[in-house]
């Protein structure tokens, strides 16, 4: 064990032996054979130590030193310093014979015990050493042994105070057991005794502490007292508790210093206020508190002890962590106590102490140990580097100077005060190092830079980048003094980056200032200009300084040979960028953008150029992550990284169902995905491609401090999708370039293709007449080759022509003609469609697209006609109505009806020329002279010639074909209403008789079978009420000619009433006799229900149509 070894070392040093003392009485020759074994065996195993005041049980190792018993050395039982006195007493005897025992040993023990009791000592043990030999085992056990006797005589109640042991020098198995028993008994009893002694000591320490405010109390005396307790605990292996004792002492002293300086009673503190004479380095390996110690020596001693304990409990890191507060505390106490010391001595001492701790740490180089203590040593390295720098300053060792004789004198004084603590040549002690560092400038530089480098390295290792950068800043200023500007610039650059990353603008500005100085010294014009620009734009810096740097920058700009690119950063802030065009931008129009920027330069600056680059927005290299600006304006708010904290959370409900569809849990979830890592590396600004850019028309332009509004424009030459890339401001050779604008402000430049459209005029197109349509060619954003051919192909039956005099053709080619963008030309196109088809189309082939344009055209005839058949008994008339459809009046002539000679026709028209205007109708009428033996269908053709009124055009023929079917009269209906009998008139409300006469007049025309007809009275319900049946079926016998049906009807109103209308229909009975027909019927209809078939209009003539009946008011009503 590590602790044990150190213990033993101390034992050999002979000054710190805190092992309890044990006296031995009785037969010392017996004991002397055991002594070595016992001394060795006791601390080997641990033993539980139970303590008072409910403190936890600890397992400890206890050793002992043995002394021969002497009455004079016995302490009083209640002495406080029992710990230093013999506190356990053992009587050894090897008497095996009871008689011998009774004769001499008993009395001896009695005397020994009497002495002990007289001193109030209860911690004793009687050991009977037996020499075990083989022959005894054969004997019977003696009735009583010496041990029994002793136990009965002296330890009747405390059986454990007597023990026998078989002499372990004779190696036998039984002896080992009994030996172990003895050792553990001694350990136990010793610990009990020792525990009591410790209690006593603790009590005493407490009492002494209570007296600390009494005059005459001395800290140092108390210190040694409590330290004794600590040493005891340390001896027991309770290093943590020993540490507590030292910590208490440490705290007590601090308390005295901070509180007690004004207090009269702490006069002892005065001894610590003597001026410092020695500043020997802290030594953790061997610490000794010298006589009349200075405060630093006392402090160093306490810290060394604490460190010692911490190392024993393997807490290297805690030692390291305690070091810096300890050093700070010491400096503060020196100040409080107003201790005078030669300049630099304190720094010396602090440096040495820090280095000692660091070196001690370095001896422990387990990976996890290093990990643990690095957290604390980093600051210690920094501290050490600061201290050595302070010393360097004091002794004139800083770069750019040389020590004066006075300063050399200081060095000598400091070195003398440090004392000597030489290390090995390979491993010099801190004192050696410091002495060497103070000897020469080079050694000092080396020492300082080495320490700073270590501090930075350790800081970086433990992840304290900012602290590392701050050390770097110190180093940079050192390098500046050394004139190594390049190194200084590298460090400052790192510092600047860290500050900017964290957004500490003031510090960043300050660092820029330092950088500017650095570059100035290095005469690096380019970098100097860029840092000058940063400094002059830093609002945090004093305006006068900014002016100075701005002027310097302007001066240096003239020296620049090549352009210098400087990112916008804080120099120019983009407030907003907006495109003032509408989207999409037409080709060849101007793209105009308005840019609002804030210049942070302290003065006006003349810009030689001002551009916003335009980049093509290729779909191919588009990343998914790229954001686009939704509107046409991009403000600085858009450009700022959206703070995820400020975003509205999208909360969704979240329901989990069990397998049986029951709800298991319900909750809300947020799909908040903004937990992406932000790209922490600063955006590198590379000047993009400014070959296409928006420009300012008037150059140069003056950029004033604060807000500036710029208007930039550019003609859109090429179509495509673009976005605004970067902004560049050129101030002579200084090119300020913004980062790429994000989100992207995209716009589209479009071309407009030429279009060709065929429009008809407002009126509908008519066939058979030549009409004019408009062919409109609109040129888009680019001109069309004037000789390009536009081809129009008409569908069959349609002809057209564009040239005024040329004849109509079905395929036409036209040249596009001279044109300018965004113009349109109208060409009249004459078209003529024949009468036969209504739907036509024109297919247009244009040179700019391969897809033909199809224009459907719908032509209407100029006239429409319809015919109607009229019947008077057996006579038939055909009426033909024609309606003009043409916008213009039509002149019609030579109307003819041709029935193909099927019968004779008689024209009833006045043969003349008619003018038919749009929408008006003209009727022609012919009588058909019907013969009984005629076809039931006659094909008729109506024709006339027409021409447009105002044109000397040839007459065109209009034809109208129609069929006349079932025109022969089959039945003649007659109806008459008679008043009821005995009445003269028909009265409203009185039942009258309706006589319905149906005359079959077509007996000669057809087969005699289908003669059933059905009549229906369709009386208007408000006028007539039909009493009884309203319909019936009448069957004509083959030769039957006339049928009269009487029905009862009642007029509901008075006056001249039209007779009730009667309709007759063919009645086809449900069942017919013929099986074939029946079958056919089933096939056709699927049923055999009777059905009705209407007669065609010419087949029934109703005589009573238009007849009226005078119905007079009911006389009863009148009364």
């Amino acid at each position, binding site marked *: 064990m590590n602790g044990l070894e150190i213990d033993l070392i101390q034992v050999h040093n002979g000054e710190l032996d805190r092992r309890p003392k044990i006296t031995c009485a009785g037969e010392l020759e017996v004991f002397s054979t055991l002594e070595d074994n016992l001394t060795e065996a006791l601390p080997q195993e641990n033993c539980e130590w139970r303590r008072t005041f409910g403190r936890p049980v600890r397992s400890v190792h206890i050793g002992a030193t043995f002394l021969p018993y002497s009455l004079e050395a016995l302490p009083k039982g209640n002495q406080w310093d029992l710990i230093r006195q013999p506190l356990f007493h053992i009587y050894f005897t090897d008497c095996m014979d009871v008689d011998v025992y009774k004769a001499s040993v008993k009395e001896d023990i009695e005397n020994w015990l009497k002495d002990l009791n007289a001193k109030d000592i209860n911690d004793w043990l009687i050991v009977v050493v037996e020499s075990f030999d083989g022959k005894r085992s054969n004997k019977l056990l003696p009735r009583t042994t010496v041990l029994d006797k002793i136990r009965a005589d002296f330890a009747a109640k405390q059986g454990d105070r007597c023990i026998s042991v078989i002499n372990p020098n004779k190696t036998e198995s039984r002896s080992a057991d009994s030996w172990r028993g003895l050792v553990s008994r001694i350990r136990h009893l010793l610990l009990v005794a020792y525990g009591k002694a410790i209690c006593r000591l603790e009590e005493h320490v407490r009492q002494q502490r209570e007296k600390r405010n009494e005059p005459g109390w001395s800290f140092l005396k108390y210190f040694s007292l409590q330290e004794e307790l600590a040493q005891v605990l340390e001896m027991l292996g309770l290093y943590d508790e020993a540490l507590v004792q030292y910590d208490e002492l440490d705290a007590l002293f601090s308390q005295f210093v901070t509180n007690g300086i004004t207090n009269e009673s702490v006069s002892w503190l005065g001894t610590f206020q003597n001026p410092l004479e020695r500043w020997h380095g802290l030594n953790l390996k061997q610490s000794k508190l010298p006589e009349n110690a200075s405060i630093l020596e006392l402090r160093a001693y306490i810290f060394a002890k604490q460190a010692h304990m911490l190392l024993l409990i393997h807490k290297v890191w805690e030692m390291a962590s305690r070091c810096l507060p300890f050093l*700070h505390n010491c400096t*503060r106490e020196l100040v409080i106590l107003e201790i005078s010391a030669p300049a630099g001595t304190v720094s010396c001492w602090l440096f040495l102490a820090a280095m000692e701790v660091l070196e001690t740490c370095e001896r422990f180089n387990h990976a996890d140990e290093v990990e643990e203590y690095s957290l604390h040593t980093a600051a210690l390295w920094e501290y050490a580097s600061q201290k050595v720098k302070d010393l360097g300053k004091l002794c004139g060792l800083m770069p750019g100077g040389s020590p004066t004789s006075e300063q050399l004198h200081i060095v000598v004084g400091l070195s003398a005060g440090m004392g000597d603590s030489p290390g090995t040549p390979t491993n010099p002690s801190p004192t050696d190092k410091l002495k060497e560092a103070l000897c020469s400038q080079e050694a000092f530089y080396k020492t300082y830079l080495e320490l700073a480098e270590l501090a930075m390295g350790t800081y970086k290792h433990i992840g304290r980048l900012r602290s590392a950068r*701050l050390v770097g*800043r110190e180093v940079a200023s050192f390098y500046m003094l050394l004139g190594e500007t390049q190194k200084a610039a590298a460090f400052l650059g790192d510092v600047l980056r860290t500050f900017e990353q964290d*957004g*500490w603008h003031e510090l960043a500005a300050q660092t820029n200032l330092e950088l500017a100085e650095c570059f100035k010294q290095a005469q690096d014009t380019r970098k100097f200009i860029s840092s000058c620009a940063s400094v002059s734009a830093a609002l945090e810096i004093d305006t006068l300084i900014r002016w100075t740097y701005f002027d310097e920058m302007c001066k240096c700009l003239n020296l620049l040979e090549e352009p210098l690119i400087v990112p916008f950063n804080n120099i120019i802030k983009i407030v907003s960028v907006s495109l003032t065009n509408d989207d999409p931008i037409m080709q060849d129009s101007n793209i105009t953008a308005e840019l609002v920027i804030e210049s942070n330069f302290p003065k006006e600056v003349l810009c030689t150029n001002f551009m916003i680059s335009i980049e093509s927005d290729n779909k191919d290299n588009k990343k998914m992550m790229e954001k686009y600006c939704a509107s046409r304006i991009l403000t600085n708010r858009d450009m700022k990284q959206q*703070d995820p904290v400020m975003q509205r959370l999208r909360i969704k409900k979240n329901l989990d169902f069990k397998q049986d569809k029951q709800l298991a849990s319900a909750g809300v979830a947020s799909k908040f995905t903004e937990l992406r890592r932000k790209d922490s590396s600063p955006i590198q600004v590379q000047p993009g491609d400014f070959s296409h850019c928006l420009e300012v028309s008037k150059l140069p332009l003056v950029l004033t401090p604060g807000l500036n509004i710029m208007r930039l424009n550019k003609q859109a030459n090429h179509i495509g999708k673009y976005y605004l890339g970067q902004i560049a401001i050129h101030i002579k050779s200084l090119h300020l370039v913004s980062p790429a604008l994000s989100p992207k402000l995209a716009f589209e430049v479009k071309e407009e293709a030429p279009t060709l459209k065929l429009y008809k005029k407002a009126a509908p197109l008519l066939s058979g007449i030549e009409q004019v349509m408009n062919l409109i060619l609109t040129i888009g954003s680019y001109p069309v080759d004037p000789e390009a051919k536009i081809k129009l192909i008409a569908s069959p039956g349609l002809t057209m022509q564009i040239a005024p005099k040329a004849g109509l053709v079905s395929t036409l080619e036209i040249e596009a003609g001279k044109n300018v963008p965004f113009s349109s030309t109208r060409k009249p196109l004459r078209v003529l469609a024949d009468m036969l088809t209504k739907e036509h189309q024109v297919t247009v082939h244009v040179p700019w697209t391969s897809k033909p344009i199809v224009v459907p055209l719908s032509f209407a005839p100029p006239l429409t006609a319809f015919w109607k058949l009229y019947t008077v008994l057996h006579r038939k008339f055909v009426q033909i109505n024609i309606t003009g459809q043409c916008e213009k009046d039509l002149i019609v002539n030579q109307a003819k009806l041709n029935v193909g000679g099927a019968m004779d026709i008689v024209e009833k028209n006045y043969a003349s020329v008619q003018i038919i205007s749009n929408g008006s109708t003209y009727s022609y009428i012919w009588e058909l002279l019907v013969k009984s033996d005629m076809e039931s269908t006659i094909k008729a053709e109506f024709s006339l010639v027409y021409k447009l009124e105002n044109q000397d055009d040839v007459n065109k023929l209009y034809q109208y074909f129609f069929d006349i079917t079932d025109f022969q009269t089959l039945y003649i209906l007659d109806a008459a209403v008679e008043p009821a009998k005995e009445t003269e008139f028909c009265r409203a409300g009185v039942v009258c008789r309706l006589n319905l006469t149906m005359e079959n007049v077509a007996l000669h025309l057809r087969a005699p079978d289908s003669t059933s007809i059905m009549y229906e009275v369709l009386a208007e319900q408000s006028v007539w009420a039909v009493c009884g049946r309203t319909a019936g079926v009448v069957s004509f016998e083959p030769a039957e000619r006339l049928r009269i049906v009487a029905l009862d009807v009642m007029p509901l109103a008075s006056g001249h009433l039209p007779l009730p209308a009667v309709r007759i229909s063919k009645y086809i009975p449900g069942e017919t006799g013929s099986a074939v027909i029946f079958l056919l019927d089933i096939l056709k209809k699927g049923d055999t229900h009777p059905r009705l078939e209407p007669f065609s209009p010419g087949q029934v003539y109703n005589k009573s149509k238009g007849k009226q009946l005078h119905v007079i008011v009911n006389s009863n009503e009148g009364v």
Partner: protein
Amino acid sequence: MAVCVGIIGKDNSPKFFTCLNPAEELNFQYKVLSALDVVEEKLNCGSKGATDLRELYLGMLYTLETHKIYGYVTNTKIKFIIVVDSTNMALRDNEIRSMFRKIHSEYADIVCNPFYIPGEPICSKSFTGSIKNIMTGTV
């Protein structure tokens, strides 16, 4: 009595900074900045324990010869830093703690102000006044 108070945002940039002696502000900024290292370290350690009810007060972050630097972190990772003169023995842990609590409540008030945009530097005069009062212990 504190000599300097800093409020550092989530992104580690300073949102508010005040010193009793304005001439020393720059020096204090360096000190507070390096304290952020320790704050980050403590926060990272804390997250491993995953204790939701985290103690906001971080205790002393580090000491310098002349100053002691204390830290406090809100649940939204706003850091409050107090710098105390190390010769000032009157300020004990409890006083610092209560100072932080007062600053926290002042900060909560300013964040509630609809005219303050969270994340922007705080430039309210009344806020500065109250913080100064907290620093000097007049509240």
